[in-house]
């Protein structure tokens, strides 16, 4: 009983951590808004992964490239011809890009950070909107450039003008 009333500090801190972990686990298992171990777009993907070589072929056949990264990164460098549709601006840009995306024979989404995979999120969204051939590119921008996909980089600003 006295241990419960005044436990040693490290032990009590460990118990608090355990209580938080237990509560979090139970809540996320039982409640409908609970999250899984991985984001839904990654754990239960509706899109298909795409190798770089196939992406090059698809692009030649008219596939539309979608850059799912934040606008700042898109402006700094992106694949030539790619449109920017990031999760943050999805609601705003989807109505504008929808006709172009629906017309495309296939859509190849790319973009990844350490903690986020916006490409997976956007591809999942596009699949839910009824687009059929939606792929997520499994390559970095540098790998794309090395494979012959042209990159468009932001030009450095001229000084003094």
């Amino acid at each position, binding site marked *: 009983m006295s241990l419960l009333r005044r436990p040693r500090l490290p032990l009590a801190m460990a118990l608090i951590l355990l209580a938080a972990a237990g509560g979090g686990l139970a*809540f996320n298992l039982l409640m409908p808004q609970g*999250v899984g171990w991985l984001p839904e777009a990654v754990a239960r993907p509706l899109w298909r992964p795409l190798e770089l070589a196939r992406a090059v072929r698809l692009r030649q056949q008219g596939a539309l490239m979608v850059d799912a990264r934040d606008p700042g990164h898109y402006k700094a460098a992106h694949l030539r011809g790619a449109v920017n549709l990031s999760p943050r601006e999805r609601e705003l840009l989807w109505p504008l890009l929808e006709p172009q995306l629906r017309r495309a024979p296939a859509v190849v989404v790319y973009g990844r950070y350490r903690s986020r995979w916006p490409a997976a999120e956007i591809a999942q969204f596009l699949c839910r909107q009824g687009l059929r051939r939606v792929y997520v590119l499994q390559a970095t921008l540098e790998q794309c450039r090395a494979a012959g996909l042209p990159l468009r980089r932001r030009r450095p600003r001229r000084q003094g003008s």
Partner: protein
Amino acid sequence: MKRLSRFITLGARLFLAGVFLYASYDKVWNPAAFASAVAAYDLLPLWAVNPASVLLAWLELVVGLLLLAGVWVRPAAAWAALLLVMFMGLLVYAGLTGAGYDCGCFPGQEGGHAAGFGAALRDLGFLLPALWLLWRGESAPARRRP
């Protein structure tokens, strides 16, 4: 003097409990939104974002409840101090990188509270009551006069 100390302890405990409960309820109830806020810092690998954000939200909730109830005050204050130091580190990092995203600290702050030095300074203010409680949190109750 002792009465003043107890008064400060009570104030610090209730204030910190309020801060942690207010900060945690939305994170606990909307775990996906908080996971997005955690992911925005881009420090954890993808597989760690959801578990870490859930644990963080619940840790804040448990700490807030314990402080409110006055149970295990020193361990709860120790967690509060640890969390606040960690948050300050993250906010300073965000300030240095010039990220400009929402700090994800409290609910209903869309666009108004960017992660950065200002938010780190605010957390430094929250750290003071946590350190006080860590120091004086569970001092022995005063002896009753015969």
